[in-house]
């Protein structure tokens, strides 16, 4: 059986792209002929990934298996509907469109269409997999038969592969500032506006020597401009750093330099940065929403709503009380085992076998 994977885009440093490559590596090891297709292919992926338009003929083979990764709307989802072989849908979640309303019409519409496409995809899939239980439940809500759903966590095996940039790390840590970190796209659903307000309470009332690093692409100008204005009106514009998208080396550097990882996001289907923080031994303070309690398990500290003062004081304890900090980090390391590559690999094997024999 030939196995194809189809996705929106493939690029280095992207969690879904990495997941696709990890699945591909295992399938090859198990003796399958494989191919990866995507609409957007970054230059570094050109030797490994083929344009999605080239998969149409191959999908006519009834002995093929197509694994489709849905993380954003892409018209190439139609290939999944047309495929004559077995079909596995891997759902990485699509942010509800309302978060982008008024900020970015393109993204808002893509999210609406993506969730519409989801209903069509689950209707024809032999198996629909979420990368968290939360995502699996969304698959069921979209119409997937319960017995045809499962959870396949994201492969996270390349963590820590990139060394930190020593010079940059020195620069970030030598001033003895308290470094707050958040990683991800700078979009309204990530609650960056809440995070900045929370940070301003912490910085102004508790610890003046604090800096908030917001690491991630700032591809939504209206929202980013509003955030700049917010930092100015709260008097923290010199304490909040928007780095934009960074290399894997720099990302590792920011994690190594971080004293605290804060998640104010309203919607996460899994949250890879939360797991990265656990890996790098950074205590996590997170909003209790969507898949976050599941990803964190009993680790980290959650907040159910943004009570600025208690949450800021909790942040202070996580940074300043070594006993609490050490226990939180220890628990996070335990939780990390949930995402052990061998476990994910076993699950993948079971799902492939399940589809293969039917």
């Amino acid at each position, binding site marked *: 059986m030939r196995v194809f994977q189809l996705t929106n885009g493939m690029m280095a440093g992207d969690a879904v792209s990495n997941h696709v490559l990890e699945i591909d590596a295992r399938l090859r090891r198990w003796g399958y002929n494989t191919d990866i297709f995507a609409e957007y292919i970054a230059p570094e992926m050109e030797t490994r990934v083929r*344009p999605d*338009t080239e998969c*149409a*003929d191959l999908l006519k083979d009834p002995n093929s298996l197509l694994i489709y990764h849905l993380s954003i709307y892409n*018209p*190439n989802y*139609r290939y999944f509907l047309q495929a004559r072989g077995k079909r596995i849908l891997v759902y990485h979640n699509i942010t509800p*469109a309302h978060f982008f*309303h*008024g*900020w970015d*019409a*393109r993204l808002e*519409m893509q999210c*609406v*269409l993506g969730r*519409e496409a989801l209903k069509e995809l689950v209707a024809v899939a032999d198996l629909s997999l979420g990368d968290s239980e939360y995502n699996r439940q969304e698959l069921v809500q979209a119409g997937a038969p319960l017995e045809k759903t499962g959870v396949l966590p994201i492969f996270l095996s390349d963590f820590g592969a990139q060394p930190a940039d020593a010079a940059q790390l020195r620069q970030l840590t030598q001033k003895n500032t308290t470094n707050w970190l958040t990683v991800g796209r700078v979009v309204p659903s990530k609650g960056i*506006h809440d995070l900045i*307000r929370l940070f*301003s*309470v912490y910085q*102004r*009332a*508790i610890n003046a020597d604090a800096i908030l690093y917001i690491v991630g692409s700032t591809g939504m100008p*209206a929202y980013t401009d*509003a955030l700049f*204005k*917010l930092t100015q*009106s*709260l008097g923290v514009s010199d304490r909040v750093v928007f780095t934009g998208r960074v290399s894997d080396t720099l990302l590792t550097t920011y994690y190594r330099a971080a004293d605290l990882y804060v998640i104010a996001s309203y919607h996460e289907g899994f949250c890879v940065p939360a797991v990265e923080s656990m890996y790098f031994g950074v205590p996590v303070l997170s909003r*209790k929403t969507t898949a976050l309690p599941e990803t964190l*398990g*009993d*680790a980290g*500290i*959650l*907040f*159910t*709503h*943004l*009570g*600025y*003062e*208690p*949450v800021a*004081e*909790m942040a*202070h*304890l996580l940074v300043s009380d070594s006993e*609490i900090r050490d*226990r*939180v980090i*220890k*628990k996070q390391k335990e939780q990390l085992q949930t995402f052990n590559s061998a476990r994910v690999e076993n699950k993948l094997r079971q799902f492939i076998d399940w589809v293969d024999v039917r």
Partner: protein
Amino acid sequence: MKTIENTSQTPLEIRDPSLDSADILRRIESQISRRRAEIKYPAADELQAAWLPLVPDTTSVRIDDDYIFQLLKELTVDSYLQEVRFSSSVPMVGWLIVAIRRAWNWMSTRWYVLPALKQQTRYNEQVIISMYRLLQSNLALQQQMDELRQQLSKLENASGSE
């Protein structure tokens, strides 16, 4: 001034049994009382007021026009252009016809047609997004008009009863 009276009011949830959550919450409460007494925290109103004016006014815009939305959805699917794949039902030499046509198709498509298809797809996407934006503004205007009508009707009723 509102304070954390008991642990059930706190937004914090500590699930790790190795942590003494009651003690942590007590310490937090004590710190809050101290810093409030020193007027250290920014006022909640200030935090709210700093963000609200920056949020786009979306109160009167909702995607509720099912027909146009359905149309846009179909247009979006059709906006994505695909190259044609050849097949032939001619016996014996069918494979040769297909092979020649595919070879020609590969040459022309890869270097000439495919970029044009992508460009057209992008163009179509932009047109659809523009239509979607127009739909949004239209719905917003519609909503505003409804509200103005209601206000007018109230004013008319009030002046009539005087």
